[in-house]
């Protein structure tokens, strides 16, 4: 549970750097909500004028501040309608604005050293072993991005691979591409590097070993900056609300917490 919370806090900091942030499904939604909550006082409604970042969704939305409810997805319009001040079409966001976003933050279930993701098929396309959901707007937005932040919240280091089997989205060669996971931050591209590591995270050593075997330079990693108690508390509150809003990862994390407490 703690590793998950710290991961979420670090992901939220990518939003708190400010600017216009394209926000994808799943972990990015939760990270965006955490960032927005940390920006406003507890119990206070989000003040749009005090928000240092704007989240944009592929449906054609620009949202200021924290949502009324944790959005069950970026297509959960009523949950964030109060902060919806830019209304557009998907084409505006995915085609016309893609190159202008300060950052693109997306979920990555399967990612490779070049920063490419597979969210389409495992196995042959004609009859896949596992049919994944498909890419939605990820290919459009990533292809024009200047900075991509992939979020992987899972606990299987093998989801970071030398080369994904099918490529759903591929960043341009000159984009800054980083992967946040529970064990640290990896810079992806022609010369992949482990930039930051979370030394006390469960499995961090195994992750570094996995990266080294893939040819990633792990020698220059520095410890991730500390996470404050108030950030952890806010992250836990987001996960509690996210569990109510149907997020499997939140339900799982809270169950783990209960099990840890019982031991």
């Amino acid at each position: 549970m703690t590793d998950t919370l710290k991961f979420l806090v670090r992901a939220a900091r990518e939003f708190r750097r400010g600017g216009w942030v394209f926000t994808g499904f799943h972990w990015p939604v939760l990270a965006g909500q955490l960032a927005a909550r940390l920006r406003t006082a507890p119990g206070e409604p989000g003040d749009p004028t005090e928000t240092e970042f704007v989240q944009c969704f592929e449906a054609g939305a620009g949202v200021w501040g924290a949502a009324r409810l944790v959005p069950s997805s970026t297509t959960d319009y009523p949950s964030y309608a109060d902060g919806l001040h830019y209304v557009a079409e998907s084409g505006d966001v995915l085609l016309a604005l893609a190159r202008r976003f300060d950052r693109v933050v997306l979920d990555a279930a399967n990612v490779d050293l070049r920063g490419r993701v597979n969210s389409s098929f495992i196995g042959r396309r004609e009859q896949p072993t596992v049919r994944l959901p498909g890419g939605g707007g990820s290919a459009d937005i990533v292809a024009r991005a200047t900075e991509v932040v992939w979020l992987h919240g899972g606990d299987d280091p093998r989801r970071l691979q030398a080369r994904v089997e099918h490529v759903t989205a591929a960043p341009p060669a000159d984009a800054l591409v980083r992967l946040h996971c529970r064990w640290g931050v990896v810079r992806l591209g022609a010369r992949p590097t482990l930039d930051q590591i979370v030394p006390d995270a469960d499995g961090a050593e195994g992750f570094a070993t996995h990266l080294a075997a893939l040819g990633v330079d792990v020698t220059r990693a520095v410890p991730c900056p500390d996470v404050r108690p108030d950030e952890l508390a806010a992250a836990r509150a987001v996960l509690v609300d996210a569990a109510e809003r149907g997020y499997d990862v939140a339900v799982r994390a809270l169950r783990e917490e209960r099990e840890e407490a019982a031991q």
Partner: protein
Amino acid sequence: MSSLSLPEAVAAFAPDGARVYLGNFGAQLFCVGHELIRQRRRELDVVVASGGLLLDQLFGAGLVRSATFGHCWSPVGPAPAWNFRRLAESGAAAGRIHELPLGWFTAALAAGAQQLPFMAVPDLPGTGYVTEDWPGGRALVVETPFGSARVISAEVPDVAFVHADLADAAGNATIRGPLGETVLAAQAARATVVVAEALVSTAEVLAAGVTLPGLIVDAVVERPGAVRPDGAVGRYDRDVAAYRRYSSASRTVDGFRQWLRTEVLDRQETP
């Protein structure tokens, strides 16, 4: 301009073999999909940007001849769209699905709206959309004196069912929330049916703002709760529990059939 009940609109505008766009991006017209199922439509070519559970239910009910979409899953959870997944993993989806990145999807509708054969789109080098032809023959590179460009073929649905918050008797309609590809779909389709939460006076629509002009609308249906279990801005929230119940039920074929019987086939639209 016709004001119809939902069963009447589905019967009139979506016959067997029709190419049917179902909106909206995140406020999906489940009521239209369910009526298509109840009316036993067959051989539909379904066009839906964010596939979601609506497309999954149409796959499961056996209505779909082909599907053009951006992705297909339950955004709540998130969880697989189990019918879609079973179909693909059995090999039965091969050749029947046209998978487009959503930017290309909107460009295809823009071409259709402007009565052009295709629209140039940003290339996606290295992705399966290009290297493995996931769009299924709909994208290629053309050479022109102005340079080369990847293009996507026009999308022209026979009918677009579009969700709106308000509509008047002349078809002028107000959409609340992000627009997705909905307006383009209404412009591209040969016919457009607005399914509105409320049919109101023209003055009320004008006050709220016209998103879809009556000029491109052929019929209006008043149907409160049209997008449940999705949410409608200012009216009702997404029903997360219903999403989860469906995901759980549809994990198996038998579970899906039971769900379909109790939630769709045993229910009727009020005329």
